[in-house]
């Protein structure tokens, strides 16, 4: 059990990256419209984020320097500030979406309007961020979030026609959709898998856990277990939707359609697992993005930060997060659709992605930071390939978003 808990950081990071409220819905949408023809994108995303989270984690463990410190140090104050602005907006939009998502999950179970749940959810996130130890936070949400495994189980319970499903794995554009929409969702899925806040959270979380050179093995295990698991959960949701929703042309407009396949497969018990999993995953994502907003700002400006410090010892860090949460709750109370908010964060992610990963790649090669733990040739080669993909995705994201009307 203790070994499993040691992987909680990786699992929680991945959950926040692959099955937060935006991804829960998007995965189901993608499955219901494109079948399995976009699964390859998630797989690609898992490889990419594993590569870069490992590098950022290694830099944090060996040099003790956090990712946004490196971003400012290497890119300079100006480019660093551009990244900070973009990343902070992404984080803020994500926090808003996740708190809204927590309210949506509670609505799914109780039927009570989300408006009543929103302040409660915001307060809940705040209390955990303010008082809970980092390890308690990651263990609880990481493990409960694994309830989402019920989607994977449901795929088998639904007894799909594998001969019909398997060919869908070959990437091709379905007849019912057009090319630009296909590629828009491909970029959205890839961007969601590699969202910078996962790297900020993972490496800062590593410093919270006081990683050192001795922790490199544990860090690698976190990456190799967490991110593939996150990808698997996201793919399972898409497969469930492909099996149940696609043939009946059911459109995904809310969480009810997302869980429909699970209820069909395993009834109320499966539904209960799914709800617990979703609530924990979305709550975990809320924690992850809230903490990331604190980490990024504090590390850029050089402030003291960390959950391992009491709030009085990291005052500005905690204040920034409190302000972010208040803004998120106020925005939600105006009635905006939380999931729609995440669609616009794609735009800012496109800016933040290259400005985040270029410094990480460079610094993980720098002897002054890494000593003997610099990147090997294979890591560099793969990282450069992914950097090229990231640059292409960043450039294409906004035009595609405009052309397709964000995936209509």
């Amino acid at each position: 059990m203790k070994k499993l808990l040691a992987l909680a950081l990786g699992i929680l990071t991945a959950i926040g990256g692959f099955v937060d409220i935006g991804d829960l819905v998007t995965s189901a949408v993608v499955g219901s419209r494109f079948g399995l023809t976009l699964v390859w994108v998630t797989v690609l995303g898992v490889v990419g984020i594993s590569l870069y989270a490992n590098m950022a984690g290694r830099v944090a463990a060996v040099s003790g320097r956090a990712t946004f410190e490196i971003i400012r140090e290497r890119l300079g104050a100006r480019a660093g500030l551009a990244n900070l602005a973009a990343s902070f907006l992404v984080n803020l939009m994500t926090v808003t979406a996740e708190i809204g998502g927590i309210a949506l999950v509670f609505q799914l179970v109780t039927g009570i309007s989300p408006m009543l749940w929103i302040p409660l959810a915001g307060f809940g996130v705040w209390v955990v961020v303010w008082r809970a130890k980092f390890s308690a936070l990651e263990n609880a949400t990481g493990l409960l979030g694994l309830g989402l495994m019920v989607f994977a189980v449901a795929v088998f319970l639904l007894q799909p026609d594998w001969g019909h499903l398997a060919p869908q794995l070959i990437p091709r554009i379905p007849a019912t959709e057009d090319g630009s929409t296909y590629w828009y969702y491909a970029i959205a899925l890839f961007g969601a898998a590699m969202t910078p806040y996962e790297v900020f959270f993972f490496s800062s979380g590593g410093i919270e856990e006081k990683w050192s050179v001795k922790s490199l093995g544990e860090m690698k295990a976190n990456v190799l277990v967490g991110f593939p698991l996150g990808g698997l959960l996201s793919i399972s949701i898409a497969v469930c939707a492909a099996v149940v929703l696609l043939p009946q042309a059911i459109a995904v407009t809310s969480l009810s359609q997302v869980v429909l396949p699970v209820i069909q497969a395993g009834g109320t018990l499966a539904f209960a697992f799914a709800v617990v999993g979703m609530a924990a995953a979305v709550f975990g994502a809320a924690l992850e993005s809230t903490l990331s907003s604190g980490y990024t700002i504090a590390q850029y400006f050089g402030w003291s930060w960390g959950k391992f410090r009491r709030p009085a010892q990291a005052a500005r860090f905690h204040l920034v997060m409190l302000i972010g949460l208040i803004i998120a709750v106020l925005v939600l109370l105006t009635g905006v659709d939380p999931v729609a908010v995440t669609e616009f964060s794609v735009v800012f992610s496109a800016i933040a992605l290259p400005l985040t990963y270029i410094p990480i790649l460079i610094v993980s090669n720098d002897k002054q930071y890494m000593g003997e733990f610099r990147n090997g040739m294979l890591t560099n080669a793969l990282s450069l390939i992914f950097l090229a993909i990231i640059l292409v995705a960043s450039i294409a994201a906004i035009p595609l978003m405009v052309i397709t009307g964000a995936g209509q």
Partner: protein
Amino acid sequence: MRAGRVVDAEFQLIDRQVIDSDGVPIVAVDDLEVSDVPWNEDLPRGTEAPVVENLLSGPTLGTRIFGGRPPESRWQRIAWKHVVDVGTALTLDAPADSFDASWTERWVRNHVVGKIPGGHHDPE
């Protein structure tokens, strides 16, 4: 820090994290204050080269990016003599609270965070 060692300002000093004697982050270096040299006039041969007097942080960041110069009274200074190590971060010889530059952290601590219940407690 070894005497004779060479350090490039933009690369190794500016935009670097400054940590105190306990490893707690204090500020990032936004700029450097260097002793005065004659400006707009020829330097006679043999003029002594200037030295770094202070690390600067705070409003100097905004003006470095956007232009202009904040009034000298607003500059947050950390004297160079407190720097004991120049590595991936700059390490100082005393705890954060003993420096003027940590005033915003202390202000938020005393006026905001300290007033919220649990602000002074370790996380549980």
